[in-house]
């Protein structure tokens, strides 16, 4: 199904995300690259949407538009009724600090900070009190099974453990949305299953909205909806939502 067509009536539930007519064009060496084309998409609160697609077909760009890390060239990216495409940067930053959790393929941990401090970094923009920060970080690390590795530097942790720290960092502020860009791309099969199992559990327990980008079919098939990005266009291949 091509979602460039109007979305089916989502029912009484107001969508958390509403993207309409979104395009993103990059200019590189005088050439225009159309990363996302005329995209219309609704994402409900608590939904798990997985996006597949080849490299360079706009998956990461879509995720960045959803996370307020970039702005579309055209169109609206409404999150909880607010257009992130038109909002001032300070407002977008606030939304990013409080509502979005990011997980990256390369973990993106600060190499000089230990696990505790890496997770704590996500609470700095929220000006949380130090004692509360400490408690929240400890709880987040416990939730990913790394309570005993809080003082370890990223270099002292395995790839799977580093991604768990990254997940703890994404979840410590209790965001509404978790945006994961190839979260298992750098992991072996066993660790991949472990991380996806963890994300599945957290999604269910915390009723998160999870948007996950991956090449890996075994990862995306756990999602409620699976979309495929091709040449900047998204088409939904599977929708298992009740």
């Amino acid at each position: 199904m091509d979602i460039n067509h109007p979305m089916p009536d989502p029912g009484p539930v107001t969508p958390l995300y509403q993207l309409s007519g979104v395009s993103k064009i990059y200019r590189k060496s005088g050439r225009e690259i159309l990363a996302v084309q005329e995209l219309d998409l609704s994402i409900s609160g608590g939904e798990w949407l997985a996006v597949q697609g080849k490299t360079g077909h706009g998956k990461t760009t879509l995720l960045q538009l959803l996370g307020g890390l970039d702005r579309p060239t055209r169109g609206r990216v409404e999150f909880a009724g607010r257009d992130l495409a038109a909002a001032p940067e300070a407002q977008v930053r606030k939304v990013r600090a409080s509502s979005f959790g990011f997980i990256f393929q390369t973990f993106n941990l600060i190499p000089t900070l230990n696990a505790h401090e890496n997770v704590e970094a996500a609470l700095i923009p929220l000006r949380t009190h130090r004692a509360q920060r400490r408690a929240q970080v400890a709880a987040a690390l416990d939730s990913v099974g790394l309570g005993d590795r809080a003082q370890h530097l990223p270099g002292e942790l395995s790839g799977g453990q580093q991604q768990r720290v990254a997940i703890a960092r994404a979840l410590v502020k209790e965001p509404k949305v978790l945006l994961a860009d190839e979260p298992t791309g750098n992991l072996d099969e066993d660790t991949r299953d472990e991380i996806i199992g963890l994300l599945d559990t957290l999604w269910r327990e915390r009723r998160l909205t999870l948007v996950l980008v991956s090449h890996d079919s075994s990862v995306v098939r756990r999602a409620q909806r699976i979309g495929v990005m091709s040449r900047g266009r998204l088409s939904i291949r599977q929708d298992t939502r009740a």
Partner: protein
Amino acid sequence: MFFFTYLRRELRRRMRQAVFIALGLAIGIGLVITVIGASSGVKAAQAKVLRALYGIGTDLTVTTTPKAPSGKPTTGQANSGGNFGPGSPRAEICVNGKCYTSGTVDTLALGETGPLSEAAVGQIARLDHVSAAAGGLLLTDNRITLPSASNPNLSPPTSFTVDGTDIHYPRLGPLSNARLTSGRTFAAADQNSDVALVDSNYAASHGVKVGSTVTIGGTRFKVIGIVSQPQAGTPPNVYIPLARAQALATNPATGKSMKGEVNTVYVAADSAADIGTVQHEIEHLLPHATVTSSSDLANEITGSAGTAAKLAGTLGKWLAVLVLIAAFAVASLLTMAAVARRVPEFGTLKALGWRSSRVVSQVLGESVTTGIIGGLAGVGLGFAGVAIIDKIAPKLTAQVPSASGAPSGTQTITGAGGTAGTPIGGPTVGHTTIAVPMSASVTIGAIVLAVLLAIAGGVLAGSFGGWRAARLRPAAALARVA
């Protein structure tokens, strides 16, 4: 605090680079401190010379150029050549038109400077921003014993310098810098007494003690005290009350005594900032006078002290500036390179919701800390540099304009040899060479400047890096990871 934890960890991670930046800044700042220390050492040496010339409290001196003597003959005449002996022609000395052919001639002559009316001292004292003004007479006592039948050869003339001191202003003039080593100094009651203070070096070489007498201008003065002057100067040999000096000295222009006249006015301004204003006021009041400030006098000092001052003031200053600029440039480039390497890190922080200002302050904090470490190391290097200069610096020499001056051409002696026009008396050259010890030192001001420079270097480097970090778009920064 998270800020300091992050800062500490980052500096530790980039230890080698941080040390390199800090070292660059340290060398620059160390050089600045060393140059300032050396410069202040040279200035202190110059100040010693200046103080020795005109005293501690004197900001300005006022002098005039002497006028040509009036119609009376000013030179003697040789009657004939050859040794003196029975029947030989006699030598003759003429002073201010009065000629002598026998005995000892002892005269008190005016120096290189011309006379000024004592009324001018009062006028200067009443000017705005003048805290005090005092007149003085810098003279040379010349003595010559003419040949006689028992001693047919002409003895070489002797001379010493005499300062007529206004005893009401002990803090102005050459005597202000002196330290009493024995006896007593002038009292108000000594104003018209034949009492004298003698410089310790002169006293030692001539066997003068407290209680002994010295003959000045043919008058015997009782020595009431011995005074010592700093090494770096050519102090007068004898100090007598101004009124007595005025009574004994003769104005070569008029041939009369110098009552009511002085040849130097010592002026103290209210503050250092007022010196320029006071100088202009006096120049306006006495258009024919020469008004010399300490800085003018410093420019007249030549020799290695002058050369060292110029070296420290020009070459040293520019060398320090260039090294500092290089250090700042290297620090800025390295910080920018470090920021470039940390683009994904800053992109991640921005994705987490960090403000750009917070990221910038983190970069600034790191570079300012590096700068402060460099500054502290620079202060250490500066101390070391100054210590080395102190250890190896040779004694400076200063050629200063002679304070006591030479006679103004009113006295000449002609000997039996018939060589006409040989001037007699004190220092006949315009400059005196003095050895001045140089002691470089690190001042609080230099340390404060070093810390400010270090912070400035850190802020500059951090600003470039921070500016680069602030401009990062999170998406673009994160794209660098992939």
